């Protein structure tokens, strides 16, 4: 829950790199699921790949891909956030428990059901013994992760990531709970994905900057009017625009931010999560035209 808390980093906070995995529309199974990449080049251990659940593989892959080319000793922390975590393994273990009447259970899904499994795996695979934590506060977890990363260190950088998964039964439960309502009695379909960013207080004007992050309920537009002319011209991107492609999920802001970071040429972009009940909004900018577009 966020009251009127608005975070405006006094010193610039740069998003140095961003990587995401997300669905591309509705798949053959009728839900928004990620087309999994070939993990081999990043997750090299075949035995490990077999043991890892689908979301664990996707998010470890995205996290490691983000850290590619960054010396591990520069990484001051790994911070993840998630809405419902590794829910497929959680339900698998709960089902086994009922099927077998609490006897002779396979511990693997239990071990992978804890919310910090992803941050732990990335640390393990990259041998990063630095600060490591996980927030489970729906869409708002991203604010905690960014606050945490900003106050963690003035040097080096921090890996931040969001992840969530969907299956047919999870999509069914989410719709029964009416988690993503919009318009009159309509629901957004559940989706999935993961987005990772490497953020740092060290950066240049070539990097994207995070200017402000707060609850989507906060009247940021009013606040923006007091800022410079450039800010007034900020393009507005809403998470709901991405729902047809990636579906709705708690950590979708991490994916949308990552997409925006890849596409912002110059100036300001105002990203709003209008899908989740506790959605956030943030303002990002690029001060120098990158000329890629």
């Amino acid at each position, binding site marked *: *829950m966020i*009251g009127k808390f608005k975070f405006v980093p006094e010193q610039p906070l740069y998003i140095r790199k961003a990587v995401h995995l997300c669905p591309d529309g509705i798949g053959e199974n009728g839900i928004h699921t990620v087309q999994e990449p070939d993990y081999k080049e990043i997750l090299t251990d075949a035995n490990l790949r077999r043991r890892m659940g689908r979301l664990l593989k996707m998010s470890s892959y995205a996290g490691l891909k983000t850290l590619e080319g960054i010396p591990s000793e520069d990484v001051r922390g790994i911070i993840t956030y998630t809405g419902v975590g590794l829910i497929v393994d959680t339900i698998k273990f709960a089902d086994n428990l009922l099927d077998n009447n609490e006897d002779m259970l396979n*511990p693997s899904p239990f071990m992978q059901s804890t919310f910090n499994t992803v941050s732990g795996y990335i640390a393990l695979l990259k041998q990063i013994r630095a600060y*490591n*934590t996980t*927030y*489970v506060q729906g869409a708002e977890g991203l604010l905690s992760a960014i606050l945490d990363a900003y106050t963690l260190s003035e040097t080096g950088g921090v890996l931040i990531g969001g992840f969530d998964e969907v299956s047919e039964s999870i999509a069914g439960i989410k719709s029964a709970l009416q988690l993503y309502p919009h318009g009159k009695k309509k629901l957004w379909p559940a989706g999935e994905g993961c987005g990772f960013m490497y953020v740092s207080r060290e950066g240049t004007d070539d990097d994207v900057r995070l200017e402000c992050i707060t609850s989507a309920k906060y009247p940021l537009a009013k606040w923006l009017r007091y800022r410079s002319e450039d800010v007034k011209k900020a393009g507005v991107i809403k998470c709901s625009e991405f729902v047809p492609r990636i579906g709705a999920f708690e950590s979708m802001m991490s994916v949308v931010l990552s997409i925006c970071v890849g596409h912002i040429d110059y100036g300001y972009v105002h990203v709003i999560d209008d899908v989740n009940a506790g959605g956030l909004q943030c303002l990002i900018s690029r001060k120098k035209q990158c000329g890629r577009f």
Partner: protein
Amino acid sequence: MARMVGAKRIDSKPVDSKAVDDGVYVIGVGAVSAAGFTAEDCASAMRKGTRTFIAPLQYLDSVLELPVGEVRMSSKCLAEYVRVSSSRVSRTALLGIIAAREAMQLNPWYQTSHNIPFGFFSGNSVGGMDLSEVFWQASRENPRGGDVGMLRMHTPGSVTDAIADYLEEELDYELALSTTVSTACSAAGNAIMMAARMIQSGQLGLALAGGTDSLCKFTLNGFNSLRILDKDVCRPFDAGRNGLNLGEGAGYLLLASSYVVKNMTRAPYCKLTGWGNANEAYHQTASTPEGIGPGLAMTAALEKSGLAPSDISFINTHGTGTSVNDLAESNAMLRVFDGKVPPFSSMKSVIGHTLGASEGIEAALMCLALKDNDSSFLSTRNFSNPIPETGLRPYDGAEPIDLKNIMSSAYGFSGNCSSLIFSRL
């Protein structure tokens, strides 16, 4: 309304020459566990010398015959106790509300009228799994049966929301933000650490931090499938230790900036001076025999506090009673303290391992001990022979300790290690 404060500028010196006190003080504590319904209850039960509160399952419906540290009240009675009427509120949230209510030893009027930005940081691992299990069981019997609304409190975040609502609606505080840390058994430690950093960086003036967790079939069976549960009362640091006992409860600290403390009439409990977080990067559920991760967390906490290892007068260990943890933790202590390990103890044989709540409950009790310089309830129960590899004997309570600085640690799945240091004022 919460004040919007940017992070303190670190590159520039403070304008006035007076040193800025960015200390983090503990001004309230609250705890509920198998030993009692308040922090003082828990401490006095241990002070009386009660050997253990670990007993056969009474309230949780499970076929497993394992001893646990259960809070002695059904969820229904807990709800009545805190006057929450909905049947869709998880036991985890109810326990959290009891501890949070006790820890809020500050007038809500003072907080709101002075616009003191107040944050809530709750560590939690199971969320509302107790309610999810009710739904799963019902929907198994009848695919269309069961109240799907029971899943609304499935995630740790929604449990935190329920406690946050209670703080705002029943107790009249106003939260600037509230969030949930879920790093398995070190969750409360990491929540306290994050809260302290938010106060130190000037973002918040006040923070309630700790953790809550309740017993459920899911975790009981999970730990059972890993074969690390003792069928008897656990024996932390004993040569014959044979696993852990699960427990439940909640514990929170009310942390405040020096500015808030200056305007209080009552003396704070103690100061939170050090904290450290590290990931062992070794194995998902096990620790290196030499305890690399725990050692890194302890060292980081010492560095943060500016204290020397010899300044630590007592260590509240994670000490779960598993073969792997206690050896790793002992080796880490031997290394960090260069062979001269201060008196140390584990509460796990009294109240069990309360997972995401453990550091919350235990830190609350450490703050009580520091406030009155009272070590009378800190001895380790159920210990007889030291681990042959280390020869370390936990504190037996025979001689009182002059408590100056207490280190308290918690380690969790996925290599998450946390260490805190509290100092007497």
